[in-house]
């Protein structure tokens, strides 16, 4: 870890401590701040993600699924021993 920071902090050789601190602060800061929800309403990615998903959800559902559930229910009512595969 420390070695990595040394290499990165090439222009701040006399400030290794500073570099380390800065990185650390940035990391903790982003995790602890709830206002900065990375996928929240202020995030473009978050908005697009919900737009994409909402559009999928609002698609018309084919009948096959309610038919399937009806079938499963009927099978069960007709006899739980006759398990169909």
């Amino acid at each position, binding site marked *: 870890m420390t070695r990595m920071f040394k290499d990165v902090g090439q222009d701040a050789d006399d400030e290794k401590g500073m570099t380390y601190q800065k990185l650390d602060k940035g990391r903790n800061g982003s995790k602890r701040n709830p206002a900065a929800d990375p996928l929240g309403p202020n995030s473009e990615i978050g908005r697009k*993600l919900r737009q994409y998903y909402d559009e999928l959800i609002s698609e018309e559902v084919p009948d096959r699924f309610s038919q399937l559930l009806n079938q499963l*229910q009927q099978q069960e009512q007709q006899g739980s021993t006759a398990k169909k595969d």
Partner: protein
Amino acid sequence: MSASPSFRDGLLAAVPTLRAFAVSLAKNADRADDLVQETLVKAWDKQDSFQPGTNLKAWLFTILRNEFYSQMRKRRREVEDSDGSITARLSIHPAQEGNSDLNDFRRALALLPEDQREAIILIGASGFSYEEAAEICGCAVGTIKCRVSRARSRLQEILSISGEGDFGPDAITAQVTNSAAVA
């Protein structure tokens, strides 16, 4: 003991969101519907193991996800070329035709590795908490956080690049071309 009508209704009510998750995973609408069908059958068979009052949606997502990965293991090779067909299938929706922005996003999402894609969908779109998503994926909460964060930066990266090159054929080509030019 016959199933309570509410269990059937619960499954039916979950179908739209299950389909959305399945399309996001499988990147193909036909396969997604097969996945949902398989999920409903499995859920029906296992309904005794579901505890009423707990999160039905999370339970169903877990079944669907397991089904997806077990199918994928079976036919890993076919999965690779499904990318092109998604866009074709999904663009049937007339409302989507004019929305090139959303099409870009869809393509970018399809470029993510499965684990990152499912994580960002579960957290950012399906409305699960990090804890629930971790449960669904069978991994640690920290792993989900890490995947979401990677997915997010990757999407930002891809989208800003494809935004620059409006004439580009697709995000990945643009990206390869760009990085080659820089190097």
